[in-house]
Structure formats: C-alpha cells, structure tokens
C-alpha cells in the first residue's frame, strides 16, 4: 500500500468524517463549563484577525492613528479574553480529570498551548513599542539571561521579538490548538467520574482505551 493510502486508512479509522463534526454529544455536555473551550477558540480567532490588521499596518501605526489604537485595544482585550477563558477551561478540565481514559495527550497539548500562549503574550507586550515594552524587556532580560535563554532569545531585540510574536508563536499556538481540537474530536469528551457511594448504576468503563490514565 502506498504511503498516501496508509495515511488515508489511518485517518479514516481514527478520525472518520462524521466524528469531526458530530451532531450529537453526551447529554452531560449541555453545561456552561463546556463553553470555556469554545470561548477560548473564539478569542483566538479574534486575536488572529486583529493581529493581522495590526501587522498589515506596521508596528508603529497604532501609536499615531485612532483607528489603529482601537484595533490595538481589540487585540489587547481579545488577548485578555483568550487567557481568561483558557485558564477557566484549564481548571475545569483539571477538576474533571479530563485526561482519563486515554486522553493524556489531549491534556498535554492543552497545557502546552497555555504555556506557549503565555510566552506569546509576553512577546506581544515587547512588541508594543512603548514604556511597557521597555520596562518588561529590561526586567525580563535578567530572567532570560539567568537560564541561558537570553543568548538566543534577546528580549531587547525588537525585531526578533516582533517576529516571534507575529509569526513563530502564532503558528505554534495554531498547531497546538489544531492538535488539541483533533484529539478532542478523536477521543470525545471524558465521562463523569463514578460516584464512590452512588446508588446509581455505575457508568461503564470496560472499554478503557489502551494507554489510558487514571
């Protein structure tokens, strides 16, 4: 079988078309807690849209244009919303034990997205070209230098930080988000914990996938 055929077969087995966009979900998914993830995704879409406009007009545009300043404000609050909803999603996923039953990689991809997003936001502050950028850069340089990172990740170099912020990190975050969403669709949402003293019929767990975690 050709490599293309193997890939096609693997994809059709692991992620069939109907599983990408299922029309049904477990009834317990009808819960506001499950909205934090999609709110994070929506914030990211707004971040990309406003970031593209800011990048198109250049890093100095927003200092001298009212429209530019407003677009920057949209980008700023989209970033705040992105991090806010992501943290809510992270903690609710934690308290759901969302990594159970073979969802460890889904969890790892989510935590990685969170960590890389923090660095992405940090480079955003460094790209603002104002006093915040100066102060954050000069204070952060010691931390970066102290662990050797400053040698190749120079927070005082605007060009390098801007490049990281508008290209490298967004690509990484997009890839991680894509991976995370794909894994969520492949595995489905985790089932609720069985209640230890519940008189209810225990939720089935016989089909725990290989590699599952407790």
């Amino acid at each position, binding site marked *: 079988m050709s490599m293309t055929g193997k890939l096609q077969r693997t994809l059709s087995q692991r992620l069939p078309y109907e*599983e990408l966009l*299922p029309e049904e979900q477990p009834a317990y998914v*009808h819960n506001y807690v499950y909205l934090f993830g999609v709110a994070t995704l929506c914030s990211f879409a707004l971040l990309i849209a406003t970031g593209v406009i800011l990048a198109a007009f250049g890093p100095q545009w927003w200092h001298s244009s009212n429209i530019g300043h407003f677009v920057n404000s949209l980008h700023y609050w989209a970033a705040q*919303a992105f991090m806010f909803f992501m943290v809510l999603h992270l903690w609710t996923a934690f308290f759901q034990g969302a990594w159970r039953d073979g969802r460890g990689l889904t969890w790892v991809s989510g935590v990685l997205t969170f960590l890389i997003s923090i660095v992405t936001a940090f480079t955003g502050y460094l790209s603002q070209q104002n*006093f915040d950028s100066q102060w954050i850069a000069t204070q952060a340089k010691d931390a970066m230098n*102290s662990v050797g990172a400053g040698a190749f990740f120079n927070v005082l*170099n605007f060009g390098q930080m801007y490049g990281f912020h508008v290209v490298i990190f967004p690509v990484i975050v997009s890839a991680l988000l894509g991976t995370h969403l794909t894994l969520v669709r492949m595995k489905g949402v985790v089932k609720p914990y069985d209640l230890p003293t519940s008189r209810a019929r225990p939720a089935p767990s016989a089909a725990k996938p290989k590699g599952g*975690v407790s």
Partner: protein
Amino acid sequence: VTSKKEYYKGVKFAPYDLVKEFVVALGVVALLVVILAAALSSPDVPSVTMKTVAVQTPQNYTQVALDSLDGNSAVATYGPPYNNQTGSVQFIGPFSPQDWLGVHIPINTAQDFVLGPLAESSAGDSVLKSALTTFKAAPSSTQAAWETAYQSALNKAPATGSSLQVPACPTCGPVPVMMSRLLALGQSGAMDGLLLTSPRFFETDYTRPLLFINYTDAMANEAAKYNLLGETWGVMNETGNYPGQAWLWLYTTFYQLPPYTTAWAANTDALAIASVTILSLLLMFVPWIPGLNRIPRYIPVYRLIWRDYYRDQS
C-alpha cells in the same frame, strides 16, 4: 469508532450543534471585546528616551556614562551574554546555564556607550577629537585616574533642571570634555540614534539603548510611578489600571517570598524560572503522576460540574 461506541455505552446522547455554538460564542466574545476596547481602550505610555534621561536627570545620565567608560556599570560587569564578567551570573545549585551559553551579544560599554558615539559625532569638533585622541593614547592607569577624579567632581556637581555644573577638574584629563559632549548629545536626542548605529542601514535591535536606559534613575522613577517595580508584583503589572499579565501570578510570587528574596536573592531569577518550570512540568504530566492525577477525584468540584448527570443517574 468501535471503541468510542463502547466507551460511551449506556451514556445518554443529545443533539448538539457545534457550529451554531461556535458562531454564537464568536458573536458574544466579539461583542464583549468590542465593548471592553471601546470603554477601556489600551495602555500606551510613551517610551523613555536617552533624551528624556539626559534632560530630566543629567547627573545620573553622566554617572551611568562614566560607569560605562570606567567599566563599573551594571552592564560592564554583567557577564554572559554581554561579556565575560561575573556580576550578574546566576546559578541553579552548582550549575550556571548562563555561563554555558557564553557571550552571544557582545557589549563593550566604554566603546558602545561612550567612545563610539563620541567618535561618530566628532567631525568638525576639534576639541572633542583631541580629547578622544588623548584619552585613547593614555595608559589604562592614567585613564582610571582621570575617571576617578571626574567621579569626585561629578559628586559635587549641582544639577538644576537639565543643567549640570561640574566643578573645574584639572586632574580629570580629557574626561570632562568627553562627558559634557556626551551629555549634549543626549540632550539633543542624538544619542538615541547613535546607540543604534551599525554597519547596516536598517536597525531593529534596541539592545544597546535599552541596556543604557535600564540602569538610569529616570527609568526606575517612571516604573515606580506605575507600580511596576519588582516588590509591587511589577512583573505582571502594566501601566494604567489594566489587568496586565495576570497569568504570571505564580511566577511573580517567587519574587515576593523567602528564600527567593533572602538566601537565594543572588539567584532569584534562575531559581524562579527553575521552580515555575518544575511546576509547569508537573501540570503537564499530571495524568501520569500517581497521587496528583487523583486530586480531582477527591475534590468534589466534578460533582458540581456534572450535577445534572448525577441527578439523572440517581
């Protein structure tokens, strides 16, 4: 698919429109962001420039320049990645990754912050040219003696507004001329450009001006005005009444707590990063860490989240 069907065996399913959910959520989040942007805008405090520093605090500007010339400044004694000194080298136990990586961004403070900019601007200024020639031709011991003498004179210099009156100093050699010219360059705004000069036309690297400005009083005063200093959780704050990088709360916490602020103070940055890295790795690999992966089982938040499910089951 089969295993997924088995996994959800016995679980009640209901129609769920993912696309509609995304579209509605996008509209709601977009509206929220537009309202916040329109009502609260975003912070944009102007940068501190070399000119600002030289005009507002001429004595401190000259002090930083003198320290840069005589090799006593924080940058001159910093260590990697700027030079081979040890002043700001940090350790994690016996290890110093800072040293391992070596000098990648070489900074010679005397040349880059003082002698270079003066040489660049000396065309047509015979007095400055002569001073530079005299300084460069002198042995290092003589240079040091001039610099020490100028330090004494500078300590006695009254600064009124943007004017700095350094007392006459016959034992300072060419240093007074050099320092006064450097102050004039700073106050005219020329230093902002001179610290960026390179063999290339375009420039996007602000390492040199930021390293100079970083250690001036003007910068610290501006930061204090906006509660950005380290002791006021400055790492996660920003100018104005804005949320800042609130997600850095855990990292910033290490800068407030002993032993990070006491016994480990010389290595706070490295140890704070090491600590937050360990905690991040624990969070990332919590699914496979016995004990930690059971925490949500024993904290009944899940009962709140899935209360409808459990009610239906009972």
